[in-house]
């Protein structure tokens, strides 16, 4: 019985779509275009996030050592440092390694180092932090803990650079939240209004159905399903269309831009976000249909 009813509702939704294909196309198109804007915003947001997280990996603490420790001492230091919950990795950079890095950085002028001994630069410990602590307060917390051990007296972390990095990331996040909020609001508004218009065009048939004994749910269900189908199609089109445009026009330009900033790879939307967009389309289709249906399907006027 329930199955037969559901089948009837789906048939009704399909019939509605077939009977007013233009209205349906308008609704699907609006959902697709609106969600595509959200998708592009997502592409930019996730790539910037990738960029800031790449920058964040460079947030580290350095402890310069008077002389390179033997294995036993190094293991003990590692244990002490890794006891901090913020620490992700501890890496020993020997004097020779430090000199090699310096040589690379000097490039063509590396011959300036000719004749200098391998012990020119001190050995150091590079302490990498876990993702949530890659900011000035995270670094300060680790430095504070390690300062209790006198062997780690010579610590360096780019304090001012870190503060600027923190401000930039906060600014980017705030901009994303504000822009994303506006975009989401505009999207919901546009989709809800388009669906309202499609139902407004059918208000007579909705009224007639109430007059011949249709219950509220019986009348509304095919239209709610229709809204869900329109939203689903719009969501799929938005993701598909955004991918196509991303691959055709955006990918190469973004790669060039991000490579200059140190990130070699450009990403499309994560799969979770893609499914989220499709689901959002469907939900907007359903919830966009409810208020106009409540308005037009009234037993008593």
């Amino acid at each position, binding site marked *: 019985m329930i199955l037969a009813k559901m089948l009837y509702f789906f048939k009704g939704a399909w019939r509605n779509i077939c*009977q007013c294909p233009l209205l349906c196309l308008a609704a699907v198109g609006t959902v697709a275009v609106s969600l595509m804007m959200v998708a592009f915003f997502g592409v930019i947001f996730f790539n910037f996030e990738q960029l800031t997280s790449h920058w964040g990996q460079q947030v580290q603490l350095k402890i310069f050592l008077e002389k390179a420790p033997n294995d036993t001492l190094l293991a003990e230091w590692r244990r002490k440092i890794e006891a901090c919950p913020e620490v992700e990795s501890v890496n020993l950079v020997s004097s020779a390694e430090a000199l090699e890095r310096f040589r690379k950085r000097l490039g063509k002028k590396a011959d300036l180092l000719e004749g200098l001994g391998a012990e020119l630069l001190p050995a150091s410990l590079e302490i990498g932090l876990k993702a949530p602590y890659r900011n000035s307060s995270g670094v300060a917390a680790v430095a504070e803990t390690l300062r209790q051990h006198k062997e780690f007296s010579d610590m360096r972390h780019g304090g001012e650079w870190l503060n600027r990095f923190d401000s930039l990331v906060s600014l980017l996040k705030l901009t994303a939240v504000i822009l994303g909020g506006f975009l989401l609001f505009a999207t919901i508004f546009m989709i809800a209004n388009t669906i309202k218009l499609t139902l407004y065009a059918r208000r007579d*048939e909705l009224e007639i159905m*109430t*007059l011949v*004994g249709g219950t509220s749910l019986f009348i509304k269900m095919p239209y709610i399903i229709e809204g869900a189908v329109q939203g689903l199609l719009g969501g799929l089109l938005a993701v598909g269309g955004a991918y196509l445009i991303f691959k055709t026009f955006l990918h190469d330009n973004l790669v060039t831009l991000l490579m200059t900033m140190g990130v070699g790879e450009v990403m499309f939307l994560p799969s979770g976000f893609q499914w989220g967009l499709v689901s959002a389309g469907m939900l907007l289709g359903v919830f966009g249909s409810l208020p106009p249906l409540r308005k037009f399907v009234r037993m*008593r006027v």
Partner: protein
Amino acid sequence: MIRICNLAKYYETGAPALTNINLNVSKGEFVYITGPSGAGKSTLLRLLFCGTSPTRGQILVNGRNITRMGASQIPYLRRQLGVVFQDFKLIKTRTLMENVAFPLEVQGIRRQEVAKRVFRALQMVKLEKYLKKYPLEISGGEQQRVAIARALVTDPLVLLADEPTGNLDDQTTLEIMELFKSANARGTTVIMATHNLELIRRHPRRVVVLKGGKIVEDHDTPLSMTASAGQAERSLDS
């Protein structure tokens, strides 16, 4: 079948649409509600199918007080009523068959049974050939016949008709009246709002005359054609 006590309906502006209406309609009766435009005929019918709420008074349909009926119960009342409007109120995007089938589908009746009854109803109004046509592909008279088929397909206890022949020519009006009379002969109570006195003269039945929202005459017993229509006419003219 229908009992109306002290019924009043005021518009939001406070103007009266109906005041102090008392009316009893027995099972199987055929009643004309007549009166000039703005007399309250359509409002009375709307109150009978719960299209609007009264300001005061009670309406009992088949022993059930419908004046304070909850919105969720109204569809079940409407399934016992057939309603026919002057503007037909057919769904233009659906075929005649789908239009007539809808009142049966909402009741969850099986598909084969629906098809059978829809065909029978359209056969009754002589439109069985047009099953797959859309309302705008047929004439106004035919559309009204489809609306009557839709109203009668559920075998309702009461048929309410609001100026059903208002937009139709004489020949079509006659055909529509025959359909109402045969439904009435099968036991359906018919309440028809009309200001067409010629119609009342030709098909004499009980006449309730409304004027300014009040019942000014009720020819309770079937009067002679001339007397009934004549009195109604005088009421309308005065």
